[in-house]
């Protein structure tokens, strides 16, 4: 199964932008468990000092009434600690519904939004998953960023995440 989600990212730097794409494929394993809930997943970019440089996506139950889904955001623990707890949710272009098992692809315009604001340097893409009545897992992919840079990378989780691949194209 392949679900392609194109996120709308507001164009912040009209004119100067060099259009590029950061594409991330996040595999959610199909699990045979008695009670299955889709995992909550946060995706962010960390700079060389370990600080959050860009919040890319948070997949959670955004449509529950009374924003009930936000109750469990703190369980995406590392994300919550590093950035989530200081954010006002829902966040435009970041909050997104949970995804089904399979390969889920997300694309970000590198000429707009938070990625466009990154200084050239070494970064990591971090994907953290937390599943209700399930486990937690975090994988990271290091990459070098500069406007117009091209890069690929991958990492694999053990329990809550499958293959995660990064493709940076100009």
């Amino acid at each position, binding site marked *: 199964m392949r679900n392609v989600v194109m996120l709308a990212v507001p164009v912040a730097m009209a004119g100067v932008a060099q259009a590029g794409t950061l594409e991330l494929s996040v595999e959610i394993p199909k699990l045979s468990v008695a009670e299955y809930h889709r995992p909550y997943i946060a995706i962010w970019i960390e700079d060389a000092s370990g600080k959050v440089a860009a919040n890319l996506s948070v997949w959670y139950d955004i449509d529950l009434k*009374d*924003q*009930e*889904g*936000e*109750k*469990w*955001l*703190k369980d995406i*623990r590392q994300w*919550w*600690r590093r950035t*989530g*707890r*200081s954010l006002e949710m829902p966040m435009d272009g970041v909050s997104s519904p949970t995804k089904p098992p399979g390969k889920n692809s997300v694309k970000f315009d590198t000429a707009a939004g938070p990625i466009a604001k990154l200084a050239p340097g070494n970064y990591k893409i971090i994907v953290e998953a937390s599943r209700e009545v399930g486990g937690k897992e975090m994988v990271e992919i290091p990459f070098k960023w500069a406007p117009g840079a091209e890069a690929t990378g991958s990492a694999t989780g053990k329990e809550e995440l499958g293959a995660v691949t990064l493709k940076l194209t100009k």
Partner: protein
Amino acid sequence: MKTFAKRLLIAATAAALMAGAAHAHRAWILPSSTVVSGDKAWVTLDGAVSNNLFFPDHRPMQVEAISITAPDGSAIKPANATVGQYRTTFDLELKQKGTYRIAQANSGLNASWKEGTETKRWRGTMAEYVAQGIDKKPGVELTASSRRVETFVTNGAPTPLKPTGKGLELGGATHPNDLYSGEEIAFTLTDNGKPAANVEVTLIQGGDRYRDEPGELKLKTGADGTLKFTPEKAGMYWLEAEASGTTSMEGKQLKSQSTYVAVIEVLPG
């Protein structure tokens, strides 16, 4: 057993000081979560005095003595409070973002003197102390005692704790709702607002019922009141400190005695 004897001793002194409060064993307020998110966040809390941590097996905490301070400093009443045989249970809705402080705190003045071979004890306010002529008793010793049992719960990002300036309190570089296994914690203990130097601190991880060794960790604050330690394991911890010294009140020098308990949660780092 040394630690048991010591506990009895503390109980014996404190019981005379604070009528009505349960003092033996270990007092605690345990939140169902220390970190919450969302606009409809609730936690449920247990308050008890028990032998094992955190299993209610002795006395419930008195609910009237519990105070809740919201991030903006306002006082909040415990919701759905029930006093059971072994524990008091109450709920708290965290409508504001920031850190809530849930405490049972009390303080008072105690005096003791000798009349012949008999030791007389008195408890009251400074005005009563003078009005009743207690200050004129031969060899009278006046002690200001304070005791605080508390825990913290944060909705969203932690906000700094505002010290009350009374008795022993927790502060410092590390926020009590921002603790992770394998990472150094740097607290500062203050006594009446001043750094509490060389104070002995006991740290015990919950779940001692399932351990042969109680696992009491004895720590000491530095000269500047700092307390540094790195918890190896995630879990709920019971932290207790006791300080004695001197203080002044309305121009009078007196002894001070202060007890502090906090329940803190260390999350997986």
